[in-house]
């Protein structure tokens, strides 16, 4: 958490020598607090004060990165407790767990299936983030073979799960030159685990069953030279997880409590009896403060729902996701193909574009600049009225590309029909269906005459 001007002032020499370019140390401190000045402008600040100011400038929740050959995931660095206060920045990494007691070919298949999965949601290609390999065997060679198999089956990052440092060491070697997360250091093994993490320059998760124990461990591990730490407070039930992760978020953001200022890892499958329950827990963890989420089950439906939810929660509430206004050509439209108009809210655009695309029928889709609002929201806010629709038709140049003058407006704004006709002389305004799902049926019946 940033220091106030007064707190910074206390760390300055307080001689008012003016060399920084400000009349007093206090004035300089105020500028620093407002991030309008650089500490280096004061030649007399002590090393100790510098260190304290640097530490205070560090993010309250450390950014931790794991990396595979082709992808990386960074989590942490969050600054608010509720998304409406600003936004959430770094979506939690969704990992899928495999165990080394599973035959190698099955591991490879599971990894390829889960990591090969992708789904298109409002124009974005979404996928899961990586694989967690667990040393259920307790055997270094078995673990190394499983890690190698996973490593070869995906270029996404890994989490290595082992409690025996010797086993972890073997797995780490098999992870090659990637940057996996090691899980986990505990009160028993932290020295060896910290040494491994430090040696390889990779992040380390710590696990304890109380916040006291967790803070103690991060201090020890940090003292041993590991900076990139991930927390597992040991809770597995949904109620305890919500409460504990909320406490951790508050400690980091409100108390600037450094020993617990790290991202958190959760294991929703360990608190769930089946896939839907696991998805419920994972959804909670996405909304409420997880940094890495290790899933025990994978199915396309579950992945899609969780990935969409993650995008929703991590969307900047100040800026709806928009598409570029203009003309969109779907299925090679000709001069006699239908013309439709919608808004530039991405959810709206894609629900319409996907339906037309899926119908196989050609069409021109005009997208009005409605400041990223849905049809009815924009209509209610005066951003998608007859004037805006007419302006979109005229400025996009669609008139030069078509041989007819028929415009289909969304059924939700049927009331605009008359006004649009007035704004667009020579055009015939048609009211389309209310829901985009019904567009293919409607377009089948459309004819230029």
């Amino acid at each position, binding site marked *: 958490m940033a220091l106030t001007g007064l707190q910074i002032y206390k760390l300055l020499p307080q001689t008012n020598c003016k060399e920084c370019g400000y009349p007093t140390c206090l004035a300089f401190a105020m500028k620093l607090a407002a991030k309008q000045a650089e500490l280096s402008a004061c030649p007399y600040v002590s090393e100790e004060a510098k260190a304290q100011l640097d530490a205070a400038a560090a993010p309250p929740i450390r950014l931790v990165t794991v990396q595979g050959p082709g992808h990386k995931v960074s989590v942490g660095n969050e600054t608010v407790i509720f998304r409406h206060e600003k936004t959430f920045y770094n979506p939690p990494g969704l990992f899928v767990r495999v165990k080394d007691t599973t035959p190698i070919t099955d591991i490879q298949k599971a990894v390829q299936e889960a990591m090969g999965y992708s789904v298109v949601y409002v124009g974005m290609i979404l996928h899961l983030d990586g694989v967690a390999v667990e040393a259920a065997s307790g055997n270094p060679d078995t673990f190394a073979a499983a890690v190698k198999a996973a490593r070869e089956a995906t270029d996404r990052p890994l989490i290595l799960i082992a409690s025996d440092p010797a086993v972890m060491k073997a797995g780490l070697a098999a992870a090659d030159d990637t940057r996996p997360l090691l899980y986990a250091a505990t009160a028993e093994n932290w020295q060896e685990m910290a040494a491994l993490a430090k040696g390889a320059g990779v992040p380390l998760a710590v696990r304890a069953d109380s916040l006291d124990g967790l803070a103690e461990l991060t201090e020890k591990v940090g003292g041993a030279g590991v900076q990139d730490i991930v927390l597992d407070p040991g809770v597995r039930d949904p*109620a305890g997880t919500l409460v504990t992760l909320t406490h951790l978020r508050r400690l980091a953001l409100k108390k600037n409590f450094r020993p617990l200022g790290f991202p958190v890892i959760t294991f929703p499958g360990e608190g769930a009896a089946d896939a839907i329950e696991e*998805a419920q827990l994972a959804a909670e963890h996405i909304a409420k403060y997880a940094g890495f989420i290790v899933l025990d089950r994978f199915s396309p439906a579950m992945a899609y729902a969780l990935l*969409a939810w993650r995008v*929703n929660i991590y969307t900047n509430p100040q800026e709806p996701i928009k598409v570029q206004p203009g003309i969109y050509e779907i299925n090679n439209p000709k001069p006699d193909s239908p013309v439709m108009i919608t808004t530039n809210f991405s959810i709206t655009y894609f629900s319409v574009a996907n339906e037309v695309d*899926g119908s196989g029928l050609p069409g021109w889709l005009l997208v009005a600049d409605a400041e990223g609002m849905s049809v009815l929201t924009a209509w209610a806010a005066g951003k998608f009225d007859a004037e805006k629709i007419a302006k979109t038709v005229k400025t996009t140049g669609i008139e030069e590309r078509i041989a007819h003058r028929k415009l289909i407006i969304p059924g939700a704004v049927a009331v605009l029909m008359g006004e649009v006709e007035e704004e667009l002389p020579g055009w015939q305004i048609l009211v389309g269906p209310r829901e985009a799902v019904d567009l293919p049926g409607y377009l089948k019946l459309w004819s230029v005459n």
Partner: protein
Amino acid sequence: MPVEIPVEKWPGRVLEATIGATAAEGGTRSRVVKVGGENTLPFMLTDGEMPNPPRIAMEVLDRYPEDWSPLLLEAWGDAARDPAQWAKAAEDAGADLVLLQLSLTRDGGKPTTAADARAITRAVLQATGLPIMVFGPGQVDADNELLVAVAEEAAGERIVLGICEEKNYRTIVAAALASGHLVNGRTAMDVNLAKQLNILIADMGMPLDRIIMDPTTAGLGYGIEYGYSVMERLRLAALQGDKMTQLPMLVTPGFEAWRQKESKVGEGVPASWGDWRERAILWETLTATNLLLAGANVLVLRHPETVRRVRAFIERMMAK
């Protein structure tokens, strides 16, 4: 290293509303349902208390919902052809409340009359012992005519009448006042609009503990984040002591989730969407689960399987 747990005590508390009345209270319900009453963020039981768990209402229509997803029609079978049977089935499926949704027209196209609305309400009240809510078709004239009749017919039962909106709340509130009912008010995802409507309703003499507010929500993937954040903001305002936001919140994840293609249809969708049934149940379940985290006090759901899922989650969240 001892860590001081950052407990947050709030000055405000959500009002507790009681829906339904037993014989002892002048009604015929087998039990009453209390909602709200918390002085903490959802499920943060280390900060304060939630005397009542969030409740589940199931939607029952007064006509066969032909346009619903085949998965829903299959789940309800013939019960969906008769509101009384449907209400009974909803009770068996584990609902806490029945939400009777009246339509503009009867099968065959004749408009629903006040007499129809009375008869349907009576039948539902007889078929289930659960407290009920009755929502009109959402068209001013029809709402006013039907809900006044419903309010009279259900006098003494402490039902929830809805939906009050800024453009139409007076008649509904007056009817609820006259017969001792509660009202549900809906606004378009905005903290100030919600407060404003609550004030308008309260100004007519409706006690605040008889108003439920619906801040409007949207389905997973279709704008839920707007509703989620508005609910979080309303709840924070309530806990901070803003009286006009201290009302229990009702949202309709069932309606919103089942409108979406993800739940509604099984064909013509990308293979990456996975198994239809699993996806549909997940869509409604996660929409509802996520809204619980934002502070929902009443969730209106549609599929019996979702009810089971969401109830189990609530129970785990409330376990001490």
